[in-house]
């Protein structure tokens, strides 16, 4: 038995560390299922309204900034890569690489939120925030307001998940730098990775659905 093995404790309700790991992993996947259904509600609203008002959605979508959206997609995919590398580092026990990768993921996540904030500010500035101040130049202003309601609901929920993710990353960085993780025990890193990639997947759908409608016109 190496010194690592002694560190692999398990909670009293489990028979061994393997059972604990399997239960935790299953728990995380089941949690992600609830997240999919949670976002599923707004996606349903989106599908219903886009199929009802395709042109209005096309026009409204052209008010979003494709450049920022594109950059953000790349940033988020990059953060998924650094997160995957963090899991990899934890699996092979490279503490320094693990901390670096987690910090990089945090950095990229913050860049994403920063860009999102710029975009939001721009929408406020141009009166594209739903409500009494909504001021939209163009046809189908009402349906465009519907589009922007969905835009803010979907990206807002997504950004909220990013913020929660950044909090999780901060905890992981702290634990990792204290040497909590080893090749034998790094379940939190791995399961958090699942969450982070899930948030990435949501964006992978949000990007074409919100930014790329009728871009050819």
């Amino acid at each position, binding site marked *: 038995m190496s010194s690592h093995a002694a560190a692999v404790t398990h909670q009293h*309700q*489990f028979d061994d560390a393997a059972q604990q790991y399997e*239960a935790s992993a299953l728990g995380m996947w089941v949690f992600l299922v609830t997240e999919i259904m949670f976002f*599923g509600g707004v996606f*349903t609203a989106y599908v219903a309204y886009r199929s009802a008002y395709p042109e209005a959605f096309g026009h409204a979508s052209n008010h979003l900034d494709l450049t920022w959206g594109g950059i953000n997609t790349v940033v988020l995919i990059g953060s998924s890569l650094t997160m995957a590398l963090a899991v990899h580092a934890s699996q092979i026990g490279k503490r320094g690489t693990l901390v670096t990768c987690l910090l990089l993921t945090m950095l990229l996540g913050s860049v994403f939120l920063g860009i999102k904030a710029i975009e939001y500010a721009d929408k406020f500035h141009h009166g594209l925030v739903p409500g009494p101040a909504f001021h939209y130049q163009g046809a189908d202003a009402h349906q465009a307001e519907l589009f922007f309601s969905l835009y803010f609901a979907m990206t807002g929920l997504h950004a909220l998940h990013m913020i929660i993710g950044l909090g999780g990353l901060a905890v992981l960085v702290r634990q990792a730098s204290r040497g909590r993780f080893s090749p034998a025990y790094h379940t939190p890193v791995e399961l958090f990775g699942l969450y982070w990639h899930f948030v990435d997947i949501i964006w992978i759908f949000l990007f074409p659905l919100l930014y790329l409608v009728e871009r050819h016109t």
Partner: protein
Amino acid sequence: METVAPRRDYLNADYGVRSWLLTVDHKRIGLLYLGSITLFFFLGGLFALLIRLELLTPGPDLVSADTYNKLFTMHGLVMIFFFLVPSIPSVLGNFLIPMMIGARDLAFPRINLLSWYVFIVGALFTLFAMVTGGVDTGWTFYTPFSTMASNTNVIPTALGVFITGFSSILTGLNFIVTIHRMRAPGLTWFRLPLFVWAHYATSIIMILGTPVLAITILLVGLERAFHLGIFDPALGGDPLLFQHLFWFYSHPAVYIMILPSMGVISELITCFSRKRIFGYGFVAASSLAIALLGFLVWAHHMFVTGMSVYAALIFSFLSFAVAIPSAVKVFNWTATLYKGSVSFEAPMLYALGFIGLFTIGGLTGLFLATTGVDIHVTDTYFVVAHFHYIMVGGAIMGYLGGLHFWWPKISGRMYPETLAKVAALILFIGFNLTFFPQFVLGYLGMPRRYHVYPPEFQVLNVMSTAGASILGVGYLLPMLYMLWSLRYGALAGANPWRATGLEWTTPSPPPTENFPQTPVVTQEAYDYEEFPLQEVPVV
């Protein structure tokens, strides 16, 4: 067999408020839930009482129209989100699932405690909304009434429901992982008690349905708070979209309430006829079938909304399909009695009552699935009667039956048997007197959520109110004698019913770790043939 020196069990393992509020023991958390939902049950019951009193006469005499609207809204909210949805899963499921599968606890004990705190926080939001003026949207929150017209506390209530939803999600998640990963050696899927199967199916619904309610309610809150216009008809929003999203959860939620009850009934019927369940595989599979099909039928709540005729017919067809697994269960329970050795202890009376009332509730559901008849009876007292037969006659009868059955395990004491039988009888009579007249009222055309009504409906309403007062007594009794039994009840012993199932192999009340050592299962469930009554030691 009780010794003089008090045995260590989960109740006396530790003392003080902290030991309860910070406990991670699934049994203690089950009791925390028991206490909280009992409070909510009587709060919701109080609202019901006021509703029934107002409806005693056709005119507006006891409360104002606004107050009445808030009363039925809060009755629905409290009973559904703060009593029925958590009832059996969070109390009996929490207490029993680890013991039934031979585990020391649920997979995630701290998440289990968290789910109770989340429940309480959600409940406090809702209570806050109630004491600061109440809410009048109906528990259904239909837009655009909830988003644009109502002047009441919609946002805090919506937040309360939203938060409580996460409690349900966490419970479901915990059960699924526990049932998959924590079963004792030898306990294969087809040796699981049907109670566990039912909770597995229930958990699936909690996991897949509740998040959709959460987002829908959140969008309503955002629309009120920030004018996000997702359901706003003025922007071209579809008011029916809200209803689709709402019922995607809220129809399967009915199965969250009734499936655990069905699980309880399977345990009771077998134990009190000393016989293996008839068609184990079919009863188990029907739980899963209900969970699956239950997600495909929601728009039968919407046949008169102006939804697509085609879609209505699809949903009607699927609604009939979900009736079959329910029927299969009823037939199998009935067949279990055949050539059994049937006795009539109080839990069995609840179980028999359940089958009767659930059968009526289920059959009247067919009327609502039939599009042509639904047009007339939807949104009338016919619907009110139907879902009370399912949710009160079904779910609550099952809950009380289960509570009586496992009370000796939970408390270590027996409740007074005669009183319990009397209570079961009072409940059965009171229930039918309350709700059967409402079927007639509904077909006559009395709409639901009416504070005043035409005088020709009065006699039936008086019958209903009279029944409700009997029902109220029936619910107070068990609470009183169960509290009494905590101190004065006879000691129960490990297995007073001489039932099969791992939970009965450990002392009552069980020790904190449930079993001295992990049990190994070698038998099928309900192996009563190998476990006859006669060897019962006199307690």
